[in-house]
């Protein structure tokens, strides 16, 4: 699998075809009006509304086995998986490599889900419903993973993927302590280390590839930022560098250790960093409100806006694809938040605050 990437990375991509398809799909996502309608519906109505949209096939396929909000959630996941799988199917050469880098995030998610499922003794069917087949791992391999008898078998099944190298040593740790943490960290590390590996360093900051690299770096930086903020908030006495991911521009390991205890210093460090301007609003939210959730929403909104600008500036590049991926992820998150919120009888205004809308 990784071999395929290396060979392909130097061939030209079919940008015209993929961006045309992606733009069409981007246009058919829910807009503000749809959200406004959805927020006022009950769970049953949401399910019926979704049957008349993009999600029709998935709702019908899953309707027999699930119901209510679960149905909505599984349909969302499956639809997301279908579309992202399509992206990888369409794309060739360079473009495939660039898209796959980001979509492997779902591989990492699936691998972790499988580990947790096996660890908690869930049945293969239960694990399978929680998988999102959007990444590079094939459906067949995922099925076999879900059916694995033990964690050791699952790790064995992952040989030949990007996770192989990191999971080997982690498995020994797992066998020593009997906790999943080393395996989960190894999965994340494998994902983040391939995220930037082999990206051309020479690409200028203003070319699409350069911008994409900056986006991936931002992904790492925000992950680091989120981790360190959580540590600072919870006041847990943990070594922040244990969760540090390399490759970002925001912190290095030493800085992280100094900052981890003081939230004001973290905010100040971000403000003086290259992200200062883009995240100005998000930082204000963080200072005023006491919730990390709103800060994360602000980060996501900032990313979404940035990727839209980029896709207009570089129409034949990876940027429109990226903008679509982000927008689709937000849509799925939003609809899920609405469905869960309505189920819990939250106020429409309250739910609207949970949404990330531009």
């Amino acid at each position: 699998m990784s071999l395929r990437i290396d060979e392909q990375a130097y061939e030209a991509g079919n940008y015209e075809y993929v961006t045309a398809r992606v733009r069409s799909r981007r246009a058919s996502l829910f807009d503000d009006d749809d959200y406004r309608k959805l927020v006022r519906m009950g769970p049953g109505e949401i399910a019926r509304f979704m049957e008349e949209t993009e999600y029709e096939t998935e709702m019908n396929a899953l309707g027999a086995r699930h119901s209510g909000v679960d149905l909505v959630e599984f349909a969302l996941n499956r639809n997301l998986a279908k579309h992202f799988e399509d992206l990888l199917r369409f794309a060739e050469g360079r473009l495939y490599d660039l898209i796959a880098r980001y979509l492997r995030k779902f591989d990492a998610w699936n691998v972790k889900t499988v580990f947790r499922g096996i660890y908690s003794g869930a049945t293969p069917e239960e694990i399978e419903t929680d998988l999102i087949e959007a990444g590079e791992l094939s459906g067949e391999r995922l099925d076999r993973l879900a059916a694995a008898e033990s964690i050791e078998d699952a790790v064995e099944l992952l040989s030949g993927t990007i996770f192989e190298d990191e999971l080997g040593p982690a498995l020994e740790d797992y066998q020593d302590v009997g906790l999943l943490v080393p395996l989960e960290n190894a999965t994340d590390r494998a994902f983040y280390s391939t995220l930037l590996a082999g990206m051309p360093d020479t690409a200028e900051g203003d070319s699409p590839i350069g911008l994409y690299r900056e986006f991936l770096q931002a992904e790492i930086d925000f992950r680091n930022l989120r981790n360190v903020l959580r540590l600072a908030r919870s006041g847990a006495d943990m070594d922040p560098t244990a969760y540090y991911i390399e490759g970002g521009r925001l912190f290095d390991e030493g800085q992280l250790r100094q900052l981890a205890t003081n939230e004001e210093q973290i905010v100040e460090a971000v403000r003086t960093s290259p992200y200062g301007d883009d995240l100005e609003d998000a930082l204000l939210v963080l200072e005023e409100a006491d919730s990390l959730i709103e800060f994360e929403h602000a980060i996501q909104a900032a990313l979404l806006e940035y990727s839209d600008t980029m896709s207009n500036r570089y129409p034949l590049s990876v940027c429109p694809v990226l903008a679509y991926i982000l927008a689709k992820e937000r849509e799925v998150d939003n609809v899920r938040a609405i469905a869960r919120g309505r189920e819990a009888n939250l106020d429409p205004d309250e739910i609207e605050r949970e949404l990330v809308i531009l």
Partner: protein
Amino acid sequence: MTGLATLASVVLQEGTNAAPAIPPLAAAALAVGLAAFGAGYAERGIGAAAVGAIAEDDSMFGRGLILTVLPETLVILALVVVFLTL
């Protein structure tokens, strides 16, 4: 000075007498060929995008077709050159 003038007249005379490396009709044919090549290259990208758009939405067929063949005008304009040389 006079030497230069004679040299220039000799060179010019020779220029008018010798047949051009590419005769006018062949040059016109080359122009059409190159224009068609350019049109083909332009249509490659547009066609790929158009097929992508049609795959998502059937109603884009007409628009996609028109946009795909637009660069064909380049060839038609190049054909004008042929008639000018005839």
